[in-house]
């Protein structure tokens, strides 16, 4: 059989293409940073990138805000589906080699690669959102921006319990990861703090490595419908873009929904269902990103972990729409107890 040929030919063919393309290649090398004290920011998103209606977008908002105030040149890159650590590392390395400083990585998946690149580029300032792994990404030039999602979730759990007439509430998680489990833990604790015997129905839309649960409104709607049929009347959608499906189901059944990450009542894309959104657990990635850029601009960079929580407004509950005006005193009371340490919110289920 003369199949061999095919392979050999493919080889020759490919060599040809490479050579062909190689003719046009040139090496301009990297230009070394901005002149005139301008910040050259490199921002590496996780899968989804700018426009994911979720936390990548939130980071983008922080960058945009900083752009308005400081002199900034920014390049934004994003991860592809199914890529390896090596590709993430290469992305960060290219930014570092390209003279970008500071470099911001959005998402815990960058932890390992960021640790390696940061060691090789000690003069560059790095930030990573959502991760603080001692030993992996805790170098002297790395700022870890993490959030006490469980605290904010606790408060919206309180709101859910107070608003529920059936004493049955729901939690729709996008993808079953430790991060989203943190939301669930806080939420459940908040619900139970108000109504100890309340039912909390929990459903995750997908399992990793299938991350479509963050962007599948149809799945969200199905899950929410199941919960509503089982008597729930408030559902917390910690599911990124899938939340819109949860709210649609809630609207249809006259139930209530709780948003996540940003103040979803005010999101234009959710305009038609906003009247069911009683509050949102706001996780201010934008604030963290903005703060970080500001610190670098003002030469006050601080390495190590910065936890954004209720005390500094890094996580909070939203009041837009005025649907929780009546229970605000109770919520504030719980908030103070958490800040003072009187209530310690669990971060794992």
């Amino acid at each position, binding site marked *: 059989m003369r199949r061999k040929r*095919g*392979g050999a*030919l493919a080889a020759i063919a490919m060599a040809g293409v490479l050579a062909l393309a190689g003719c046009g290649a040139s090496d301009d090398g990297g230009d070394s940073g901005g002149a005139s004290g301008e910040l050259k920011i490199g921002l590496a998103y996780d899968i989804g990138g700018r426009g994911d209606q979720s936390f990548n977008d939130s980071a983008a908002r922080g960058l945009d805000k900083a752009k308005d105030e400081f002199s900034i040149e920014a390049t934004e890159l994003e991860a592809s589906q*199914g890529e390896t650590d090596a590709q993430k*590392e290469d992305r960060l390395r290219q930014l570092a080699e390209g003279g970008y400083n500071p470099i911001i990585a959005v998402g815990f998946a960058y932890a390992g690669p960021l640790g390696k690149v940061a060691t090789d580029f000690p003069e560059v300032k790095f930030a990573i959102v959502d991760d603080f792994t001692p030993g992996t990404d805790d170098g002297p030039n790395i700022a870890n921006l993490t959030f006490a999602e469980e605290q904010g979730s606790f408060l919206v759990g309180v709101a859910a319990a107070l608003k529920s007439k059936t004493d049955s509430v729901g939690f729709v998680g996008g993808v079953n990861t430790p991060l989203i489990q943190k939301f669930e833990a806080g939420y459940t604790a908040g619900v139970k703090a108000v109504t100890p015997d309340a039912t909390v129905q929990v459903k995750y839309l997908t399992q990793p*490595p299938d991350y479509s649960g963050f962007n599948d409104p149809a799945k969200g709607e199905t899950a929410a419908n199941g919960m509503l049929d089982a008597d729930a009347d408030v559902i917390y959608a910690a599911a990124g873009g899938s939340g819109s499906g949860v709210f649609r189901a809630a609207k249809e059944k006259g139930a209530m929904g709780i948003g996540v990450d940003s103040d979803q009542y005010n999101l234009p894309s959710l305009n038609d269902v906003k009247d069911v959104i009683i509050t949102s657990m706001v996780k201010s990635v934008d604030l963290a990103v903005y703060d970080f850029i500001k610190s670098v601009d003002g030469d006050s960079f601080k390495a190590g972990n910065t936890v954004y929580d209720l005390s500094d407004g890094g996580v909070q509950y939203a009041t837009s729409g005025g649907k929780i005006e009546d229970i605000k005193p109770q919520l504030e009371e719980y908030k103070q107890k958490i800040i003072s340490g009187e209530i310690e919110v669990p971060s794992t289920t």
Partner: protein
Amino acid sequence: MGRISLRSVGLGLAAPVGALVFALLVCGVILSITGHPPFSVAEDMIGSLERPRTIANSLNSATTYYLSAVAVAIGFKMRLFNIGVDGQYRLAAMLAAALAGASFMESLPSVVRILLTILAAMLVGAVWSGIAGFLKVTRGVSEVISTIMLNAIATALVAFLLNPDRLAVTVAGSNNIGTAPITEGGQVPGIPYSGSSSDVYGLVALAAVVGVAYWFMLNRTRFGFDLKATGESESAAVASGVNVKKMVLASMLLSGAVAGLVGLPQLLGDSHSYALDFPAGLGFTGIAIALLGRNHPIGMAFAAFLWGALDQTSNVLDLSGVPKEIVVIMQGVIVLSVVIAYELVRRYKLRLEQRDVGRALGTTKTPEEVQG
């Protein structure tokens, strides 16, 4: 034959070269339409290939892709479509990682530890694909359906096992979760690549061994002959004494065993733990590469490297403001056009060969004339 083989070389070249050129043209047009000069994009991509790191990373990606492609190709040779390579390697990598990271393995010599890990991964992959093979043989369930479902089940199973109560460990402050890290004795050291910050996976050797074994199996063994024969004509294979059911099961097991290896270069050479960020979807890439490389051991190696290089050079595009999805489009166009081109060339070649046979017979033997 000299003339024929020269021509066949040309014909063989025609398909991949034509397809690549066509794919380049399509991408060029897309780039131009979206307002990006194609030549500067090509320059950027080639430029990034000049960095040793990109080459090393391409080789690493190619290693994984190649293993995945071989797994798929073993099925393809039998006309079996093992879509389940994805689930097979993820489950295998996860369980092998748990085994390799387990504390009792610490006491074993490094070689034994690595070999055990490899064997475990092959076994898990084989069992998982074997289920599909068994269902096909006993119940006539299409392997396409069953492997797709097994992928979903593998996802659920991995998620279930990746829990602190079961096979996973958590690290304070991290939002990731994975199996216990494999300590140095269980890792496969990388091969330093001069000028590159990343090493080439030590298990690139494993891919080479698998490639040679695949070639040997296909071309030198009775089993390989039966496999190809069944793929080319099941009825003829049956008539020749091949037990097709046995072959289906055997090839599914074999395909799964190779699939089990797919995650290992990454696991033992880089990640050292199966965590949430372990690369997924390599099984589907394997299908594309098997198609591109025509199931041929060497063809697939080049296809895998081409694919890996395209992946690695795509990072540079974002930096210059070109959407790197162009690379995905390019990969898609290449596969599509290669598949079509190969089929066209195959038909053309057969027709040429038939004509040649006719011509050779017409000229070599002069028919003795009989007067009627």
